[in-house]
């Protein structure tokens, strides 16, 4: 079946890079027989993405258990072969992962591209669309989880379960100035990034007081 998607496998067909060829075969199988198509069981968290350039649209839905673990990851797509294969591949990767682990995968577009094999340049945005929709779904989960959180300390980063207190402590102790520094110190913001505005507020508040 290799080579049935002619543009996609231009490079791999040359036979120069065998790992790419392996990836290409897998990509082709994923396209023709995609996994994780459909809707996750309710209650689910939904993320969408679309390309105004090529018109592709994608919807990701996640079902998450009480331990913040993704038990179902499903997608629906109206887009090219690369989009379908990318979505199938990323959904497969995130099932069983915590939302934090999944969100971290969702930030790594380059890694997903590499797993797909040699993509022609005009298709490089397709895997990015899948990552975007996944992260958007996790953000929905995070927003809900943050609101429903009943612990003593306010929860900021739901992906890695980092409280407001912890972030304040880290900022004060290390003199942190940026979100990236906060993430480096305590992982807050390393996942879906829905807490970025909250971390920004805490930074301003603490550093203002300082």
């Amino acid at each position: 079946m290799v080579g049935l998607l002619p543009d996609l496998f231009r490079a791999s067909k040359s036979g120069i890079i065998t790992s790419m060829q392996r990836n290409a075969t897998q990509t082709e199988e994923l396209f023709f027989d995609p996994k994780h198509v459909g809707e996750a069981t309710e209650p689910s968290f939904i993320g969408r993405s679309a390309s105004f350039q090529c018109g592709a649209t994608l919807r990701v839905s996640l079902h998450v258990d009480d331990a913040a673990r993704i038990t179902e990851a499903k997608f629906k797509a109206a887009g090219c072969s690369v989009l379908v294969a990318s979505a199938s591949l990323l959904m497969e990767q995130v099932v069983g992962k915590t939302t934090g682990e999944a969100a971290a995968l969702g930030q790594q577009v380059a890694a997903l591209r590499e797993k797909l094999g040699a993509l022609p340049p005009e298709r490089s945005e397709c895997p990015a669309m899948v990552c975007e929709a996944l992260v958007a779904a996790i953000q929905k989960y995070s927003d809900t989880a943050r609101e429903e959180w009943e612990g003593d300390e306010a929860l900021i980063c739901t992906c890695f379960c980092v409280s407001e207190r912890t972030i304040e402590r880290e900022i004060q102790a290390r003199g942190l100035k940026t979100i990236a520094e906060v993430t480096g110190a305590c992982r807050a913001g390393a996942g879906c990034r829905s807490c970025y505005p909250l971390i920004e507020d805490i930074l301003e508040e603490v550093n203002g007081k300082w």
Partner: protein
Amino acid sequence: MIYLDNNATTRVAPEVFDAMRPYLTDTYGNPSSAHSLGRQMKSAVERAREQVAELLGAADASEIVFTSCGSESDNWAIGGFLEQNPTRRHIITTRVEHEAVRTLCEHLAEIGCEVTWLEVDGSGELDLDDLRRALRRDTGIVSVMLANNETGVLFPIDEIGKVVRENSDAVFHVDGVQAVGKIPIDLKEFDVDLFALSGHKLHAPQGVGALYIRNGVKLPSFIIGGGQESGRRAGTSAVPNIVGLGAACELARTTNIDGHESIMKLRNKLEDEILQTIPNARLNGTADRAKRLPNTANISFEYLEGENIMLHLDKAGISVSTGSACHSTTRESSPTLRAMNVPYAAAQGSIRFSLGRYNTEAEIDQTLKVLPEIIGKLAEMSPYDEQLKSLYAAHGRSINS
């Protein structure tokens, strides 16, 4: 393999190959040479010229000049005219031309020509009043296709020719590439000055085309060099290909009289059944079949993406084309469908089925068996659930059934 992409290219006919074979093996020589081998080649070229002239209904074989392809013919017609008439820089053409004309005219607009683009309606048809209004005293050339490569919609070149003649001194060029061999043509009946055709669209090999230049129309040589083609197009004649084009024209002329009918019957069956049985299918181009090529059906499967459909059909052994953005290197959906105001979600899912002389009813039946399964599977995958659900419900069905 079920080949339903005959507007892209066609299989070389066995009769054509047989005609070419001697010129690829034992019979060789440069037709410009004076010795007997050369003269033999020359007479093969002249015979092919007569065969082409006869299919087109040209008044004289000398009106046919061989080129390398349809794009060369189109470029020569328009570019050659402008070279000859540098002050007549107003060009009229349509929004739905093949790239050979459209991209050339875009380029000419950038380098100082004025281009009027005629719009089409939702059926892909022109309003001849637009043309009347666009024609001016300084209009140099009007270039209009006879048959659209994507939708098969035919432009009335007889009427267009009259309008051009009555309202201007402009030269009238017709891109006939997609029409030759598919519908009867009689150029001496039309007010057409220049007419481009391409061999590989009618079962000749790739790499040969022709330009009809009406007697009396002056066109400077586009390729400058030797005196081939009566000094009108330099470069050693591609004798095997030219012989192939001649044989293909002969084949089209002698066998397509009922061939058009049988192809049309198969196309109609395919088109009717798809439109009747697949809820999200809609036709692109006029529903009036008298105004469309007999072999082409351009159908959108709304809310799906064409490359997906094309690749699944390919896996099932069926070759078609798509106007989807995903399949074009520009990442934009077909300019022809956009000019027709086909909604975006429909243009994305457009598939062109273009039949040819070798298709059989069994192949159409097989396509009609495979296609609904593919469309159903992709509909289940589409995020436009609500829209698809209501389209399917209107047919009394659910997506999964």
